[in-house]
């Protein structure tokens, strides 16, 4: 339990500027991280509109796309991340019981 909580989440979210789905995805991810993995998540947000080369290089073309590098296994989730329970499961997090 303690070990799990000390695991660092290394995430990257590819977005397309302020496209609605991208904005929504950022908001969903942010709320989950803040509420359930506060302080132990390393999140990089890549804006493909600003840096399309990055998308080409990383092989990510469709946005929004979340990539979880650590803890292993790597997982990729396409979409606006509207399903909170699914997102928590992907990230290996538990819902924090109450405030």
């Amino acid at each position, binding site marked *: 339990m303690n070990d799990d909580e000390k695991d660092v989440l290394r995430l990257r979210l590819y977005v397309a500027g302020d496209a*609605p789905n991208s904005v*929504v995805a950022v908001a969903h991810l942010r709320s989950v991280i803040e509420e359930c993995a506060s302080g132990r998540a390393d999140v990089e947000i890549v804006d493909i*509109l600003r840096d399309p080369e990055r998308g*080409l290089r990383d092989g990510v*073309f469709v946005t929004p796309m979340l990539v979880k590098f650590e803890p292993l296994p790597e*997982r990729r989730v396409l979409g*606006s991340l509207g*399903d909170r329970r*699914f997102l928590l499961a992907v990230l290996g997090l538990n819902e924090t019981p109450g405030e």
Partner: protein
Amino acid sequence: MEQSQSLAATSRMPTGIAGFDEVADGGLPRGAVTVVLGGVGTGKTTFGMQVLAKGALEHNEPGILVAFEESAGRVVANTSGFVWGGEALKDRGVHAIDAQLSQWVEQSGEFDLIGLLAIVAAKAKEVGGRRVVFDGIDVLLSCLGDAASIRREAFRLRDWVNQSGLSAIVTAKADHWGQASATDFDFLEFMADCVVTLHNRVVQGIALRFVRVAKYRGAANSGNEFPLVITTAGLEIAANATLRLSYPVSADRVSSGVERLDSMLTGGYYRGSSILITGVPGTAKTSLSAAFAEGAARRGQRTLYVSFDEAPEQVVRNVASIGLQLAPHIEDGTLVLKSLRGRAASPEAHVAQIRAFLAETEPQHLVVDPLSALFQHGFDQVSEGAALQILDVAKSRGVTMIFTSLLASSTGLAEQTPINISAIADTWIHVANVNQGGERNRTLTIVKSRGTAHSNQVRELVLTNEGITLADVYSVGGEVLLGTLRWEKEIADQRAREGERNDAIVLKQRAELALAETRFELTTLAQRRAIQEEELAQLQKRTTAEVDTRVDEDQERLQRRSADPTDSPSAVADQGVDPDPTGPQ
């Protein structure tokens, strides 16, 4: 007016798909979206790749492939069977983006194409791209789940294309027309400026391909379906069999490869003409074709030899037995020997393949052996159209074409010739087997030969290990003699001729003798005549000489009488005879 025409011309993107631009208002719309719909294996990806490759290679218009269904690497690799395809495309202006969603990608919530389009735009800017193909976009769009999202992204794509100035081809599967899986994609057709549908139809076990321009915004579009074929040249519309009326006409002759056949044709085939050789199996149709090709190769004229259902090695080996060595000519490229499997493709596909071979090798002569291979499926109209197209292609290129036709049996020549190509052929040679005296021999007849004062006689076709020759035939009581019978007849004739010769010698001698006798007689007669003339002359002389002598004698007598001139009564009498007036004084 001119301006609008030039605008129209520049607003079309040539596809490089032979025959397609002619039925699609000059090409696909520029700066707009063309949707290519078709089932599995109908050639959607090939369509897109060919447009990209031809654009890059022939029009200096770099292109971008965005592959959703298969990896971009595999899509490119799959084109290596085409003359314009293969890995080299990557260095020649066709750039690939692998947008295949990994099977490990999970989905949660909605997504859009905004990021993707930004990446494609960046790539296009980097490489100066003019054409873009989104291959298998249905794979990605179907992940969107609901029709509203699909619709939204499709319109996003279209708007992006219109703004980017790129010309786009979007391919999508449309397997089951009219069924639910396809209706979700109806909007694709709706939003596109041009819709091309591809489909396969299986007729009597053979897949035939068709293409149709289902929609073309702002263009007159017939909406007709056209047969489509895939060859090493890629996709190609098999044009309707429209035989042109004017072809390059040549008065040059080309040797048939058989000396005596050339004589029968008063100098050989016409260059650029079509020659049909008919006959049942084993009547040396291939040998005649090979003799032609070999002869042409020796004169440095390139021949494309298309053999149906017989491997090149087999052809080479078989004709080597009659002294025709094809291998050296194949090595130096003057003979290009290609094999096709008759049943492996539709007649239309064979035509397209032969057309592609012609374009690749640019030969002066073409042999198709047998052309009747096109007819083994039995679709008469399609097959006949295919045969006519091959003739058309050859004629329009000024290529001399020899094609053989297999007849199922030796009877009913005209009815058995499977097509009325025999009517179109300029020269029709028929080879037949004739059984006689326990032997099977071959005969050759020139059924027709346009513009040639050809022999109508039947000749025996003789294959030796030194080649093909034709022998005179003898007819006895209306029956043509061949083989051993012919040989026996020849010997008998020779003997008869020898006898005649001996007789003639005698006769000649006799005649010479007769002539000599006549000459002798003439000489004798001439001598006799001379003698007689001499006699006459002598007699003439003698008669004059006798008169003179008498006068002299008279004068002597008078002189003697002058001693006593008065007593000569005879002198008075003599005065009348003697003209000398002085005498009687």
